[in-house]
């Protein structure tokens, strides 16, 4: 961190009121040149409002913003941009049908004699990408690129011209481990170039990895600015306002017999996979995007075709025939994308909690729903998982990402399944909700269930799993005991023995919808 007397950016007592609500209450924060300042808070804490104010999208109700010590008032996003504040929002703003070069210079295409100069366009676009060392072809259409490349284009676009401050809103939420690492590398480079960076993330390990300082918001109010090396538990405590003993809860549990095993399983994404999970165990499956880790769950649940091999479930042979059959046999799978495969967003929370379970758990007899029993059961689940707001009749789409995820995971409490397969259960949800999810995992393991945790969050794999299989190009390339599991060990296995480049984002399995209020 370079020490400068005047901060690059100073937010002083900024308040933003909406009719009937204070979204941001007297928040102050300063950003130095060459600093990565992490903004941390649960969904609804006010992070988005603060970013929108800095980006000129909204005006503060009171308080001031100083850039290089001079007070500024942005009347539009364009003014903030011209002042050097560049924001990369979570929803990308690229035009999918235009080329990379066209997208980069959209709105300021270089012209010669009134016509777009392709030569100048390519040169300027190439420069923009070179600034972040991104190796992306200029002439391909953006929609044909993986999400990670699109994210890089968006950042390159933000850096055009005189950029001084870069605001990144959860830039890694939809990226795999390797893509995220690359992005963090770019952030470090930009910091070294002297940019001030405001970085929003829900991934705890990224905070210490690239952050210098952390400012925590809760319910719109400023809580604290602390060093980025503070323990995770303390940060979570600041965010949630409740004491957190452990980010990764881990009760004493006894390991029993094998409940779930794959033997020489082959599918279009998997090559000779052997895997075994015992009662009371949480077994991790880690790997890069496209490593095939998601296919482990999808094949077992019957969503992807099993080509050959054997699967055993609770002691007997099992052949996947689809979700309905799998659940009946005691295998529950929780999909990675809660919005696409998890919830019926237009229906109320109540109906989502009992989705597909009514008959099996005795809430309906002869096809008739016992509505009183259903709503009692739903209230129980809402309490058990602390789903907020606890309005059973509100549409699921109105819940925050973390609460939506809890609604999907509640199926594990409602139905008595022996084996539970989670595909990235904490992607894009805030840390308070993550802790609730981890408690649920621990609780299920304590009850003697066998759990598979497919995850791209290394911290979570290290913190939660008893054993971890690492996958690469559809194969299991390593099995690590809890003691052996570390970031270094996992990452070194990620790249397998052969060239890792070939499978860069080859799989569409991780299409994630992180949400931020």
């Amino acid at each position, binding site marked *: 961190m370079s020490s400068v007397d005047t901060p690059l950016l100073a937010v002083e007592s900024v308040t933003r009121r909406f009719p*009937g609500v204070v979204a941001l209450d007297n928040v102050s924060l300063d950003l130095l040149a060459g600093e990565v300042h992490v903004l941390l808070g649960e969904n609804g804490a006010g992070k988005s409002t603060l970013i929108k104010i800095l980006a000129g999208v909204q005006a503060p109700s009171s308080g001031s913003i100083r850039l290089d010590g001079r007070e500024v008032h942005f009347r539009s996003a364009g003014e903030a941009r011209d002042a050097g504040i560049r924001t990369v929002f979570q929803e990308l703003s690229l035009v999918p049908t235009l080329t990379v070069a066209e997208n980069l210079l959209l709105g300021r295409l270089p012209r010669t004699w009134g016509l777009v100069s392709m030569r100048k366009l390519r040169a300027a676009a190439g420069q923009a990408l070179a600034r972040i060392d991104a190796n992306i072809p200029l002439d391909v259409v953006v929609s044909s690129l993986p999400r990670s490349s699109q994210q890089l284009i968006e950042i390159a676009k933000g850096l055009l011209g005189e950029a001084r401050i870069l605001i990144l809103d959860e830039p890694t939420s939809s990226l795999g481990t390797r893509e995220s690492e690359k992005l963090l590398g770019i952030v470090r480079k930009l910091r070294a170039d002297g940019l001030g960076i405001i970085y929003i993330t829900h991934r705890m390990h990224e905070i210490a990895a690239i952050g210098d300082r952390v400012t925590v918001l809760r319910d719109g109010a400023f809580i604290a600015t602390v060093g980025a090396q503070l323990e995770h538990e303390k940060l979570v405590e600041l965010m949630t*306002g409740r004491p957190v003993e452990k980010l990764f809860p881990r009760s004493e549990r006894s390991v029993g017999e094998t409940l779930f095993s794959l033997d020489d399983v082959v599918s279009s994404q998997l090559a000779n996979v052997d895997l075994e999970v015992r009662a009371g165990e949480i077994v991790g499956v880690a790997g890069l995007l496209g490593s095939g880790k998601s296919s482990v769950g999808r094949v077992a649940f019957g969503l992807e075709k099993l080509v050959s091999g054997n699967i055993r479930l609770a002691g007997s042979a099992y052949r996947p025939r689809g979700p309905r059959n799998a659940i009946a046999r005691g295998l529950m799978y929780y999909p990675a994308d809660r919005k696409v495969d998890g919830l019926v967003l237009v229906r109320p929370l109540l109906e989502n909690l009992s989705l*597909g379970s009514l008959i099996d758990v005795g809430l309906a007899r002869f096809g008739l729903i016992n509505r009183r029993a259903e709503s009692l059961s739903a209230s129980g689940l809402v309490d058990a998982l602390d789903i907020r707001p606890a309005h059973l009749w509100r549409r699921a789409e109105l819940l925050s990402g973390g609460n939506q995820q809890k609604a999907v995971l509640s199926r594990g409490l409602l139905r008595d399944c022996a084996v539970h397969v989670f595909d990235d259960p904490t992607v894009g949800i805030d840390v308070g909700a993550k802790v609730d999810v981890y408690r649920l995992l621990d609780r299920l393991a304590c009850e003697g269930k066998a759990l598979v945790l497919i995850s791209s969050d290394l911290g979570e794999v290290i913190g939660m799993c008893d054993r971890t299989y690492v996958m690469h190009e559809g194969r299991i390339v390593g099995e690590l005991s809890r003691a052996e599991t570390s970031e270094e060990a996992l990452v070194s296995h990620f790249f397998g023995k052969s060239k890792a480049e070939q499978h860069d984002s080859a799989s569409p399995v991780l299409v994630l919808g992180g949400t931020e209020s």
Partner: protein
Amino acid sequence: MSPSNIAPQRETVFGAARSGSRNVAAVLLRAGLLPILLVALILVFSLLAPQFLAPANLINISRQSVFLLLVALGQMVVLLAAQLDLSVGATIAVTSVVTATVTSSLTGGDASVVPLGLAVGLGVGVAVGVFNGFFVAVVKVPSFMVTLGTTSILTGIALILSKGAPVSGVPALFTATLATGSVFGIPISVLIGIVIAVVVFIVLSRTTFGRNIYAVGGNSSAASVAGISVTATLIGSFVLCSVLASLAGVLLTARVASGEASLGSSYVMLSIAAAVLGGTSLFGGEGKLGLVILGVLFLGVLSNGMNILHVSSYVQELVIGGVLVAAVAIERLRTQVFGT
């Protein structure tokens, strides 16, 4: 602030953000617009034509609306599942020809003619529904295409069976019971309509099948992952729709006392109009039965009132089409207000 205080406060926030003039519009758009329009329509017609509110005319409206009610309820079920059934009109036609052919072959005073005619007619509905449902749910052809094809197939069958001419000789008992018969002054067909509406209401709101229709229509992928059989649910919803169309076909046959291949084609558009007027989402997963019934009544009153006022049938076509476009526009406005 302690964590327990957070949820209620966010709630008031939510309420407050929607206060003011937008709130009035929101309430009106959520449910209130259709009832208000219906009342306005009734007021206008009763002012313009005093005989409009006469008991005989009101019974007439309900009698005429039963056919559309049955078809619209079926269409609603299919729309809830995020599908569309364009073949309801042709289903009515085939049902009419088949029912007339079978019942006319029976000897005059045979008492079994009513249940037999109903069974045969509804059987046609089951067959059509299974056919449509199979291609949509198993072969995975878009329902728009499948039911467009089915429309042509069924129309062809109806014309072949009837040789292009009305099938006459429908027993008088059949007509007397289902078309002109009444209990305590209420036409039997209207009673059938009421019973069916109650049954569909219970199916949609109280049974797992109904719940599954909403879930599959709202997000079939999530429904499947949660363990719901999407195939069975889709086939079931098409069967329910076709059976209701067939029931309308049987009642229409009794009313015109013959089997006609030209019967029912107008109900395709009208049934979609009534369902959408009643706020049923074209994207599936959302819709309330009570409002669809109001949509049916609205169209029934509109058509009856225009008849009384001697509005030409050409103009009537134009007005009803305009109402449908307006309904879709309102639906769009509604999703914009409540979309996120």
